[in-house]
């Protein structure tokens, strides 16, 4: 690493293009900086860059100099009944100011209760009580951080008897009340659809795509329920499944070209394997751009 004061480097805003990007893993830092592969953008988990200094900031600074960035929080606990952690909001604001990411997102989930951080994206009942709380929290995030955020649809394994509305109506209402955008995780749709037994294509067709600002893709792990029926786990530990690629193509046909992230967070493969997954998503996006052009020509 060059000897220089990384804290003194400042970035201008740089938007994320409607291309394929990849979740940045420390295993690949060196190769990315050395070879500058053709990648639309990188996404990082905000919490991994909340140390005061050190190599993670040095690498991210170098990568941000060459690529657009998306900042993805995994620990804010927007769906918790308790108030948001003000200290954590301040850290998210500081990271946004330092790295000027083109996109900033968090999850429709909770992870903190009674001061314990459970480090998982826990599910919410879909009803007015939860909706009011989530909307208030998103208002607070957007006011504090000073920008629009995207909210991601979850992978779920259970349903709550307290739910009184659908996930889509819940997300629609949150977006309408707060002005936030949505991050549509297509793998989460497939996982939840299998686990809760609804049609994932109907879900995509009903989704308020006008609010979507980013798409996520990942691999899931197949398991089984108490009665032997399939139970899919959102594991991010393998290639994207064929069913998820099909759902992604269907999604892009509705949304048009959209920044698309390939997530692979455990059993992280060698860079060329990840780069090949990325290429596949870029191929779908390029085909969609061609169709947009043809449609424009036909008019």
């Amino acid at each position, binding site marked *: *690493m060059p*000897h220089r*004061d*990384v*804290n003194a480097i400042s970035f201008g805003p740089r938007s994320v293009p409607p291309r394929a990007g990849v979740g940045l893993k420390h295993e690949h830092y060196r190769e990315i900086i050395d070879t500058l592969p053709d990648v639309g953008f990188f996404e990082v988990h905000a*919490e*991994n860059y*909340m*140390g*005061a*200094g*050190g*190599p*993670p900031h*040095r690498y991210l600074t170098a990568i941000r100099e060459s690529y657009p960035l998306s900042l993805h929080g*995994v*620990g*804010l*606990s927007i769906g*918790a*009944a*308790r108030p948001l*952690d003000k200290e*954590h909001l301040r*850290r998210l604001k500081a990271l946004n100011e330092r790295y000027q990411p083109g996109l900033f997102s968090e999850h429709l989930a*909770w*992870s*903190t*209760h*009674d*001061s*314990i*951080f*459970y*480090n*998982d994206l*826990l599910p*919410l*009942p879909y*009803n007015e*009580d*939860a909706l009011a*709380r989530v909307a208030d929290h998103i208002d607070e995030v957007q006011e504090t951080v000073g920008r629009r955020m995207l909210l991601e649809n979850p992978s779920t*394994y*259970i*349903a*709550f*008897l*307290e739910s*009184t509305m659908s996930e889509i109506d819940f997300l629609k209402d949150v977006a309408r009340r707060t002005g936030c955008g949505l991050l549509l995780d297509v793998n989460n749709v497939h996982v939840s659809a299998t*686990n*809760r*037994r609804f049609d994932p294509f109907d879900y995509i067709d009903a989704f308020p795509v006008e609010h979507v600002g980013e798409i996520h893709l990942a691999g899931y792990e197949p*398991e*089984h*329920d*108490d009665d032997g029926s399939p*139970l899919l*786990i959102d594991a991010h530990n393998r290639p994207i499944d064929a069913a998820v690629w099909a759902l992604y193509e269907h999604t892009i046909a509705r949304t048009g070209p959209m920044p698309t992230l390939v997530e692979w967070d*455990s059993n992280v493969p060698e860079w060329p394997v990840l780069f090949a997954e990325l290429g596949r998503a870029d191929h779908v996006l390029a085909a969609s751009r061609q169709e947009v052009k043809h449609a424009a020509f036909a008019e």
Partner: protein
Amino acid sequence: MLRSLSEVQAEFAAALLDPAAVVPSDVADPEGKPTPRRFAVYRNNVTVGLVNTVSGAFPAVKRIVGDDFFTAMAIAYVRAEPPNSPVLLEYGKGFADFIDGFGPAGSLPYLADIARIEWEWHEAYHAAEAMSLGPDDLAGIAEGDLPTLTFSLHPSLRVVRSAYPSLTIWRMNTSDDPVVPVDLGAGGEDALIVRPGAMVNVRQLPAGGATFIEILADGGTLSEAAERAAESDKGFDLSASIAGLIDAGAVVGYSIGH
């Protein structure tokens, strides 16, 4: 009457880290039936995720005790002291003290000190940046000013004292070198850990070196630090200790008092 969000989450949370707790009553499969197997996915995610976090910060402890023992010990730690912050870079600070009180690890009295070295290494890795001073930066200090000289030390600097040859054991378990028997009665080793650039430096401190650095880090003058270090260990060598500190990149500023 629907329960409030707070009530729903209290019941759900209480069952996450306690395998004996009953599955929340409002959690159902798509037919509305109770589903312990599905709730177990969340329990497993929480425990495995936190154990992996601990595991990532303590590779030498894991190598010494083996995967199965480490996982059992980490699960006990996660259940006893779950994190209070979403910044998991900070989770594991209490693991060394937990190991001290963990009965099954009692036959490895040095194990907690290995965990201390690993934790301080981890903190140094993520610590704030600062520019280290070299010998030339300090060459102009007049000899008469030396007694009242105080140093600003690098924000990543840590000292770990051990009554065992813990640094030797740590090195053996973080390199590809063959593991050979270590004489636990060979005497203690104190470690200096500092990250002046991209790399974390770990060095064994000479006699009295730990006391010397601790007094300087508390804002003590060079003469106070030298005096206390010599009291703590007759073998203390002042000029070698200053040279070692500068060479490690541990000094980032100085001032001359009174």
